[in-house]
């Protein structure tokens, strides 16, 4: 890109000055002030309804502010909207392109809108197609692309006129890890071209990759700084206890310790406390008394998510922990029967749609009371499998049982014994909270006293006691999600299927939601869940990795990290890691290098040999402030490396990889 003439390097390309937006009584954005400089990636994070999208829309000059002002590349968004739009690329949260047009047609349309001249156009489009790895799909309809490809196409369309400012509203929402890596690679190239990027995200590991982060809540920015600076806001320190009995340990600790918060993530108990030494001593003592095994107790550095929860966790929009205890009684009936029985079992399950095989010869077992995670990119066959298990779709071949009933012949029996929550929460927006509950209660045949009891329970579980009579449409994402879950389990089913229940929900609500899932599992309910979020995968008891309709790996998170993965992972912490990713990838013995949190994860077959190479490289380039560590791979590493292995195999087996 040519040197910037209108915005000198030292001037911010995005400037908001007391920007406010009021909808009726509600202040959606309250005196937002921020600057983003050329070549900077700024992440705006906050819970649902915090005002992130509204802020972006005002900056993009597609919504008028109620008060305050903002400038994009020096042009006022209200008075010079036309100029602003020339310098700007904006990507809305919804897919903003035409599904019935091909990739090429969509790009051409945007090129025309931005007045890209015929001369430079061809080269620019070629560049963008390579950039986004979209070239094989130019003639495909946009509606037939996967979620990740849609986002990349939208980005390509937005970038057609080489903008100075890029505004992205949750660009990687619902996008699988592979596509997310691609996406971030593109963003960093733009950053090197000195584009100013402002994005909102619900993935806090993505926020860690930003140069600076703004925490926003209830329309107000409460903190701005580098991820490291933000992490210093953490109230208290974090003690982690790894154990195979993590959930039981949490249960005995909860009454005994005075912690700020206590959660379980997979096999790890997370305690946030003021006095870490005192807490550790006490915890060891309590656990020893109870006789539970412990693998490791140590302090962990806070992640952005920890900060997010600790800073924002106390606002009124989230239910207190109290209702959880009442839930225990509600599910007591199942707890008594919980044992190592099989809740779900399938053998050679296959589903074809014409010539397309959506689910290919899948076999697995899920035990009662287990949290079973189903992981895979869009279109891998997760939802199809769940629909077959729920009796909504007939398998083409193979067989299975759910709660002891055959999925081919006894679907009506199954429907009585399962709860199903679909990706799009199937609530009626024009009904109130109670009316929705009553409707689903009616469907499951609840009435009279039982319905009254369950309604009260559901309202309390979802934390909607004060909003019983509110229209569902006005609820935020996290609330809707909990209400949808409450509706799905009104009839106290022994098995619950959750199809991407946390997609697009903020981290705080996600944690609350997982608390609910854990307490359900504790009562002996089997939870079957699909997710995109790799951290969430770690919270499951067992995981199955699905790719191309096939199950490519299964096991506990630890098993997957230690056994299924042949490659080793080296974690590199250094300044400006993205710049190093490309050269590092070329080193001998290095298979891949990708951003992870605020560092790089380097994939290698032999960590020892690779570390030598990397150290030499770091010395040659005189990068001093770098730390290297061979680590246990993250779930994302496992996911990506297993999928790439399958792709490599397919590549050598047949024609060039055409990942859908």
């Amino acid at each position, binding site marked *: 890109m040519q040197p910037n003439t209108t915005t000198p390097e030292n001037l911010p390309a995005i400037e908001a000055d007391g920007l406010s937006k009021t909808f009726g009584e509600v202040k959606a954005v309250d005196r937002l002030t921020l600057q983003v400089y050329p070549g900077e990636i700024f992440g705006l994070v906050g819970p649902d309804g915090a005002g992130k999208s509204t802020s972006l*829309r005002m900056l*993009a*000059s*597609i*919504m*008028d502010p109620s008060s305050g002002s903002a400038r994009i590349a020096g042009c006022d968004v209200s008075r010079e909207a*036309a100029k602003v*739009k*020339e310098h*700007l*690329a*904006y*990507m*809305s949260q*919804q*897919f*903003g*392109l*035409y*599904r*019935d*047009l091909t990739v090429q*047609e969509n790009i*051409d*349309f*945007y090129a*025309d*809108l*931005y*007045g890209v001249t015929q001369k430079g156009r061809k080269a620019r489009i070629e560049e963008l197609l390579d950039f986004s790895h979209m070239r094989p799909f130019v003639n495909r309809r946009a509606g037939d692309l996967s979620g990740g490809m849609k986002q990349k196409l*939208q980005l390509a369309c937005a970038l057609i006129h080489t903008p100075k400012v890029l505004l992205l509203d949750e660009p990687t929402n619902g996008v699988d890890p592979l596509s997310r890596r691609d996406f971030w690679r593109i963003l960093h190239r733009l950053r090197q071209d000195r584009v100013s990027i402002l994005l909102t995200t619900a993935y806090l590991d993505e926020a860690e990759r930003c140069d600076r982060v703004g925490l926003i809540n209830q329309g107000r920015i409460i903190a701005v700084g580098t991820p490291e600076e933000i992490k210093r806001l953490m109230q208290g320190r974090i003690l982690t206890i790894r154990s195979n009995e993590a959930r039981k340990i949490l249960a005995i600790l909860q009454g005994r310790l005075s912690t700020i918060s206590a959660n379980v993530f997979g096999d790890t108990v997370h305690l946030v406390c003021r006095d870490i030494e005192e807490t550790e001593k006490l915890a060891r003592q309590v656990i020893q008394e109870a006789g539970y095994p412990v693998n490791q107790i140590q302090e962990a550095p806070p992640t952005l998510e920890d900060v997010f929860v600790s800073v924002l966790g106390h606002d009124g929009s989230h239910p207190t922990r109290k209702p959880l205890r009442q839930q225990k009684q509600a599910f007591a009936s199942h707890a008594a029967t919980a044992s190592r029985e099989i809740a779900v079992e399938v053998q050679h399950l296959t589903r074809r749609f014409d010539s397309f095989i959506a689910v290919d010869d899948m076999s697995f077992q899920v035990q009662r009371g287990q949290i079973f995670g189903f992981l895979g990119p869009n279109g891998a066959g997760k939802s199809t499998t769940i629909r077959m298990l729920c009796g909504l779709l007939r398998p083409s071949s193979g067989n299975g049982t759910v709660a002891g009933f055959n999925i081919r012949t006894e679907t009506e029996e199954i429907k009585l014994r399962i709860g199903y929550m679909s990706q799009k929460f199937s609530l009626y927006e024009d009904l109130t909270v109670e009316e929705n509950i009553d409707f689903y209660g009616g469907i499951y045949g609840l009435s009279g006293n039982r319905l009254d009891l369950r309604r009260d329970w559901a309202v309390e579980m979802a934390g909607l006691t004060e909003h019983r009579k509110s229209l569902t449409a006005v609820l935020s994402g996290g609330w809707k999600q909990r209400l949808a879950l409450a509706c799905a389990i009104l009839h106290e089913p022994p098995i619950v299927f959750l199809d991407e229940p946390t997609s697009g929900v903020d981290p705080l609500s996600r944690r609350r939601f997982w608390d609910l899932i854990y307490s359900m599992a504790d009562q002996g309910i089997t939870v079957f869940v699909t997710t995109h979020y790799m951290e969430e995968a770690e919270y499951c008891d067992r995981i199955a990795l699905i790719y191309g309709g096939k199950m490519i790996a299964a096991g506990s998170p630890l098993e997957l990290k230690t056994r299924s993965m042949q490659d080793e992972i080296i974690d590199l912490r250094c300044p400006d890691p993205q710049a190093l990713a490309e050269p590092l990838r070329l080193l001998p013995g290095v298979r891949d290098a990708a951003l992870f949190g605020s560092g790089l994860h380097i994939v290698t077959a032999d960590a020892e040999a690779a570390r030598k190479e990397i150290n030499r490289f770091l010395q040659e380039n005189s990068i001093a402030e770098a730390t290297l560590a061979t680590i246990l791979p993250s779930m994302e590493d496992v996911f990506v490396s297993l999928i790439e292995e399958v792709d490599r195999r397919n590549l050598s087996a047949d024609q060039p990889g055409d990942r859908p």
Partner: protein
Amino acid sequence: MNLRRLAAVARKETLHLIRDWRSLTLALAIPLILILLYGYALTLDLRQVPTVVWDQSKTSTSRELLSLFQNSPSFSIRGYYDSFTGLQKELDSGRAMIALVIPADFANKVQAAKPVKIQIIGDGSDANTSRLSMNYAAAVAGLFARTVAAEQMQLKGRGELKPPVEMKERSWYNPDLRSQNVLIPGIIALVMIVVAAMLTSTTIAREWETGTMEQLISTPLRAPELIFGKVVPYFVIGMTDVVMAVLMGKYIFAVPIVGSTLLLFAMSALFLIGALFFGMTLSITLKSQVLANQIAIVAGFLPTLLLSGFVFAIENMPLPLQLITYIVPARYFIAILRGIYLKGIGLEILWADALFLGIYSLFMIIRANRAFKFKLE
């Protein structure tokens, strides 16, 4: 307004239309069906009115009269009865529209040149047809009376009878009084308003509903470029429909165009623009495809059918309704079409109607652009 961006929108909208073959087919099939339906079903001419007879006279004279009815294209004698109950049954069941009763002394009185009365009974439950057919029947009977009188004069050797006053009926512009000649122009208007308003009523709302609007607002595209660009492909379809309607009128219903075909298409284009922007305005204000579509069909169809002079003469309406017809654009359009089709007149007479049509279209264009807020609320 930037024409390149406008063209980009038009091109994109055309692609949508081509991809969405269902609505494209609908846009071309609806006129076809409407024209056939109205062209054949909606006729104001009397044809083959089912008639039953009680011939009490049963003479060659009475048969002479009946043969006049039989030979007329307007009547078709379906049966002969010997009692009122027989006639009544046919009328009750709807198998006959009118009944003729010829008195027993019919022949005698005619021979004696004395006045004679025939009874014509009509089915009043279908008042219009009944009144018409009774008038026709009276005319047939009158013809018979004149023939008889003339014969008798001749017999008496008094030469030809010259009635003192003779009405020479001639219908200008439509000599055969074919109702299709009058209806086809109205059908063209009806087809155009339904298709045009229906097509454009979804376009803007669709962008809001699918979330593509937000992305569009963020680009340098301006609101008028979007509106006009979107209208272009629908204008082409609308004009195709007009050509189709005119051709069908000419070759299927044999309705000739006396006046200038060029003027006909120019005026149609003017009306079409108004109808397209009417649908656009609905789409813009309602922001819902389904709602805008339904309202477009109802609000386009009904006034054009009822208040334009298409079927029901405006002069016969009560005054308040007459006043309302002044804001129905089809009123002017149909007047223009009939003028061109039947009278062969041009703008020297039709200028006022054309002016109103132009004002209407301009108003709708402004309305659509004013209503459109190219921002998120």
